[in-house]
């Protein structure tokens, strides 16, 4: 089976570092290193962690019409996205469901840099080609560039040793930066709730850059296990779990990501797939929504657990859950019917046939520490 899995350019390095490799989205990926998930998680929040996220899909859209074209596929303002900034977006379908979530950066007036999820990247590429392939050029970087994430409060100190200019970037800024003489794309963003960077680097130089970063005393290699617990504490959605084609951005509590000028009263309202459904849901409300959940016992509550009310009626389902090492307690996210959406609502998860009391809580569970200047 492992023969059919893709390897990132850092595969040999992961093995050398003693990583436990697992199949993930068609790739052989490090789930943890000898440090273990718990310590990797805590180290990232205390210092800096280096993640290999090269399995994700990177794309370049080029052309004078590229921004306007991409805007027809997402409920997000791309036309007015300034050069040097990145924005969170999602591809929607005609029913208002979410096909994938993505990051879009403006590299130049007529150049957009896009990062999509590993499991969706082939489908996303086909989606882009079929809908906007005639309006701009679409270049897949799937086989040519690696993606590293350097996350944590010390990430800035570490990366600034290689390129002092990155220290003055603020959250969601994006720049072409030379690291070790290698032309890289650097964004000040990530998936941990911490300050940090994501670095797109050509495959051939990825290992040299990763080794250089790991040589810094603050940096440890961090696997997908800790990546998941970090993002969960930060209240960040994982595609295919916390949102999917069966959930709309409104149900997924992602209204914040729908740009004001794409909403019903905006200058460029609608004109994205599923707009009628999504904007109507914004106006009229939805019957269920994604919320944060704090179990009141030590039992971790996992994805798929039913959520019930005081009378045992099923009112929802857990979409992500586990243990938060920084929180020091279990935590979860789930979809609940509208009556239970308010923070403080009492609900119960059914875990192995037993009820575990939970409180609906605001997210993030652990304060985000982005650098906003």
């Amino acid at each position, binding site marked *: 089976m492992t023969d059919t899995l893709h390897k990132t350019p850092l595969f040999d390095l992961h093995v050398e570092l003693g990583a436990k490799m697992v199949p993930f989205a068609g790739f052989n990926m490090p789930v943890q290193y000898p440090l*273990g*998930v718990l310590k990797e*998680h805590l180290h990232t929040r205390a210092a800096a962690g280096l993640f290999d996220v090269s399995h994700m899909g990177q794309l370049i859209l080029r052309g004078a019409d590229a921004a306007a074209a991409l805007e027809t596929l997402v409920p997000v303002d791309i036309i007015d996205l300034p050069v040097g900034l990145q924005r969170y977006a999602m591809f929607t379908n005609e029913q208002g469901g979410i096909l994938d979530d993505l990051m879009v950066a403006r590299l130049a007036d007529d150049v957009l840099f896009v990062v999509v999820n590993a499991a969706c990247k082939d489908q996303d590429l086909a989606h882009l080609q079929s809908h906007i392939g005639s309006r701009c050029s679409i270049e897949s970087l799937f086989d040519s560039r690696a993606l590293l994430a350097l996350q944590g409060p010390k990430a800035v100190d570490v990366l600034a040793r290689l390129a002092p200019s990155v220290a003055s970037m603020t959250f969601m800024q994006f720049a072409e930066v030379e690291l070790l003489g290698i032309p890289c794309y650097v964004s000040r963003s990530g998936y941990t709730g911490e300050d940090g960077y994501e670095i797109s680097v050509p495959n051939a130089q990825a290992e040299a850059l990763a080794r250089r970063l790991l040589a810094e005393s603050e940096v440890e290699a961090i696997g997908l*296990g800790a990546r998941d*617990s970090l993002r969960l504490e930060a209240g960040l959605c994982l595609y295919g779990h916390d949102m999917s084609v069966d959930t709309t951005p409104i149900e997924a509590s992602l209204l914040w990501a729908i740009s004001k000028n794409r909403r019903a009263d905006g200058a460029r309202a609608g004109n994205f797939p599923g707009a009628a459904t999504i904007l109507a849901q914004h106006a009229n409300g939805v019957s269920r929504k994604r919320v944060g959940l704090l179990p009141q016992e030590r*039992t971790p509550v996992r994805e798929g657990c039913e959520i019930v009310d005081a009378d045992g009626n099923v009112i929802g389902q857990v979409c992500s859950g586990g*243990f938060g090492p920084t929180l020091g307690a*279990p935590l979860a996210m789930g979809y609940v019917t509208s009556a239970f959406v308010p923070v403080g609502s009492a609900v119960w998860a059914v875990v*192995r046939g037993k009820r575990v009391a939970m409180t609906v809580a605001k997210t993030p569970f652990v304060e985000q520490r982005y650098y906003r200047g």
Partner: protein
Amino acid sequence: MSELRFTVDHEWLRVDQDGLITVGVTHFAQDALGDVVFVQLPEAGDYEQGAEVAVLESVKAASSIVMPMAGEVIAVNATLEETPELVNQAPLTEGWFFRMRAADMSAFDSLMDESAYARFLTATADA
């Protein structure tokens, strides 16, 4: 201390001087699970062999502890409720799970001894 026996579910068993059997998970099991953050201990009582009696939760996932032989759970290691990390730190000693009385002691002798378990681990790794 008498010798340990092992199951294919990566549990170890030891017959103590009072004739009861202490049960825990092996080094291999704790390493595969990763950092244990929660343990649900068994309730006292009679169980069939293979019954799911306890749960281990790591940061990554949940895993069941099954009854290695038919018998009665007599006592549990309540220390694990507050310090589940003992399962990682000392799986063969302080990280024990429960003590049981076997319905039929002859089943104990058919379990793997240390060298058989080592061969089983090698075979599993090669599969």
